[in-house]
């Protein structure tokens, strides 16, 4: 009865945008185009990386199995945290309102979006496992049976991940502590490897093709996946209308901003608003204006402690990664690329004051100081914080791994300053220039979309490029200097055009 009412409602919903044959053909054409131009080259690039000597050295190292366990634990912790903000059980706001307001059980109403989300997660986990397993098999390091067991464990891992994602959605308050406990336990199991035998992420790790027979571990992982599937309807029925509608509205706003390539606004939708520290004295008027603004920015960070802590942790990780990228025998390009994107992400929360200064500079005069002075005053805190965290982390990593200290410090400092400038430039960016909406006709179709995406993600891409250029600092500083000049000029142009 409920199922027929649900299908009738969904039929009406889908009928509002009935696709003609030519529409469907176009969607298929677009999918094939994206597959050929994006997906196939990306998969091929990944294959080349994992099957290269450096990639195989990492995959066949003694710690590979433990690393898989750690990755799985991190994936599960991340899934729980993600569910707190955007769970898998979500529909467009109006459809959600109409269906969840009816007497149809939510286990039925929200079944399809959860199945879709699960299918995507399972596919990605399985693809990752197959890629790694086949690289090992191809080079004679693993048996085919071992690869199949590993892929099957990845499928079960995907199912558990999707259900934990739903757990985060159903228990948003518990999401953060549960994730932290999971990460702490995973960290502990690295130092006490015996623990891995008793942990689900450890079971997945032992199915790694080089870790021996993992059939027993696969059984444990599969049992966990089955238990997760059984508990799913209970979790779905537990979701409240308020939780669902809030998440759906946020997701709709974020996707609307993303479609207009305003990724800064899209991510801002999911940023935690401050609720703590409202009685902290943030403004301390002083003759030394730099002190007033420095303390103002510190107070702003203290009011969003979780966000600030994540940013500092990410900055520390970036410092360690860039230092490690100078160590002989490591996949330096991969480490530097990750460092670049991580430091760009970390600078976002740390430059809130600077981003506000950029907004003020583009608006009508409000402060009794020049725009340039305001920006400089708001640069102080993030610059000091970034350099302190990055250089400390890089120093510790360099000293413990035998990396030359000077080059590690220079690299870490350079990527920090570059990310800071990029964040400021991003805040001055403004909306997508209409000129980029002009069609770019090529034999492969209209490529104006590529230009638009390039414009939207140029800043994080430049951060990655900067980190890659930093890895050649021991040989030559010229690529990094040229990039710095280009970024400087671009930011200056944006500054001139800010109003």
């Amino acid at each position, binding site marked *: 009865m409920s199922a027929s009412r649900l299908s009738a409602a969904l039929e009406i919903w889908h009928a509002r945008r009935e696709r003609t044959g030519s529409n469907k053909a176009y969607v298929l054409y677009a999918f094939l185009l994206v597959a050929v131009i994006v997906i196939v080259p990306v998969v091929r690039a990944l294959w080349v990386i994992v099957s290269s000597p450096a990639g195989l050295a990492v995959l066949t190292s003694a710690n590979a199995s433990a690393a898989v366990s750690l990755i799985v634990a991190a994936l599960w912790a991340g899934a729980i945290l993600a569910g707190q903000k955007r769970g898998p059980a979500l529909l467009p706001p109006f459809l959600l309102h109409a269906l969840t307001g009816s007497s149809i059980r939510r286990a039925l109403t929200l079944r399809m979006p959860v199945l879709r989300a699960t299918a995507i997660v399972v596919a990605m986990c399985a693809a990752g496992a197959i890629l790694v397993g086949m690289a090992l098999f191809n080079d004679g390091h693993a048996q085919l049976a071992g690869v199949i067991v590993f892929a099957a464990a990845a499928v079960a891992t995907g199912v558990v991940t999707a259900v934990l994602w739903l757990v985060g959605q159903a228990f948003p308050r518990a999401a953060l502590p549960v994730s932290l406990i999971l990460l702490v336990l995973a960290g502990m199991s690295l130092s006490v490897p015996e623990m891995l035998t008793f942990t689900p992420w450890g079971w997945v790790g032992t199915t790694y093709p080089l870790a021996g027979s993992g059939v027993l571990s696969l059984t444990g992982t599969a049992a966990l996946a089955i238990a997760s599937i059984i508990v799913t309807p209970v979790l779905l029925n537990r979701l409240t209308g308020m939780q669902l509608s809030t998440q759906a509205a946020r997701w709709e706003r974020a996707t609307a901003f993303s479609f207009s390539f305003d990724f800064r606004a899209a991510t801002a939708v999911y940023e935690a608003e401050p609720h703590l520290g*409202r009685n902290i004295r*943030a*403004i301390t008027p*002083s003759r030394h204006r730099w002190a007033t603004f420095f303390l103002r920015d510190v107070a702003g960070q203290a009011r969003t402690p979780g966000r600030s802590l994540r940013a500092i942790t990410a900055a520390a990780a970036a410092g360690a990664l860039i230092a490690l990228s100078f160590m002989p025998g490591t996949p330096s390009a991969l480490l530097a690329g990750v460092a670049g994107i991580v430091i760009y992400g970390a600078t976002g929360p740390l430059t*809130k004051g600077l981003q506000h200064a950029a907004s003020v500079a583009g608006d009508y005069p409000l402060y009794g100081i020049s725009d340039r002075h305001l920006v400089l005053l708001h640069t102080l805190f993030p610059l000091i914080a970034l350099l302190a965290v990055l250089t400390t982390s890089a120093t510790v990593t360099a000293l413990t791994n035998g990396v030359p200290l000077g080059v590690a410090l220079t690299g870490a400092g350079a990527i920090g300053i570059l990310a800071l400038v990029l964040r400021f430039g991003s805040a001055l960016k403004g909306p997508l220039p209409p000129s980029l909406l002009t069609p770019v006709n090529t034999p492969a179709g209209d490529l104006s979309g590529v230009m638009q995406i390039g414009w939207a993600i140029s800043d994080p891409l430049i951060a990655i490029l900067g980190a890659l250029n930093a890895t050649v600092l021991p040989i030559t500083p010229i690529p990094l200097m040229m990039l710095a000049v280009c970024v400087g000029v671009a930011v200056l142009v944006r500054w001139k055009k800010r*109003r």
Partner: protein
Amino acid sequence: MHPKDFRSNALSAPSTAKNAKDPASVLSPVVSVDAVSMTANDTLLLPPTTFQSGPGQVVALRGENGSGKTTLLRALAGRIRPTTGTIQVSCQPVNERDPEFRRRVAVMIGLPPMASDLTVFDHVALVASTWETSPGSVEALTRRVLDEFGLTELAARFPHELSSGQTQLFGLALVFVRPFNVLLLDEPEQRLDPGRVELLAQAILFRRAAGATIVAATHSSSLADCTADLTVTLGTPS
């Protein structure tokens, strides 16, 4: 035409002027708008408009939606260049790049940028601290302006915790806390209940009494009646 009513030249219908001072008494105009018009892509955005306003005067810009009120304010703020005519502020051409012009002219066209990690009090105090020199005067000025707009009870709230009307009052407090000779306001009564419009009117009259020249586009007859020395009614551009 009523001698105290400066109207858009494009308008033919008569209008009424409220409690206006004689414009002839504007011996040294602070704001001088002479035959200013704005056209974009052959579309008339602002019909030719002329008026002058001296120190301690409030000009109410009235007119239907799309009649060019905001366009005129943006031209007065130096953000756009008029197609015809001249604008002078304190006998100087409008130059938004001039720091002295920015010191003299305060503008609220839309809400000012707000920082999510600062409370209402912090915002107002931070703006005040960049204009005032002594910490004591920053504190006193902040409290006075918050009180003026009925925001004292909301001082510890973050911007996302305010209603739309409270956010409008907060935006006004941010602009009113800074010193100015000329204040340009675009529909400052937006989203405010009658009691809060009264607070706004009092704040405007207080600045007028202190010698400021205020140009406000408004759809509120009560605000215009209560504060305006001059009413400039813009016609809907054809």
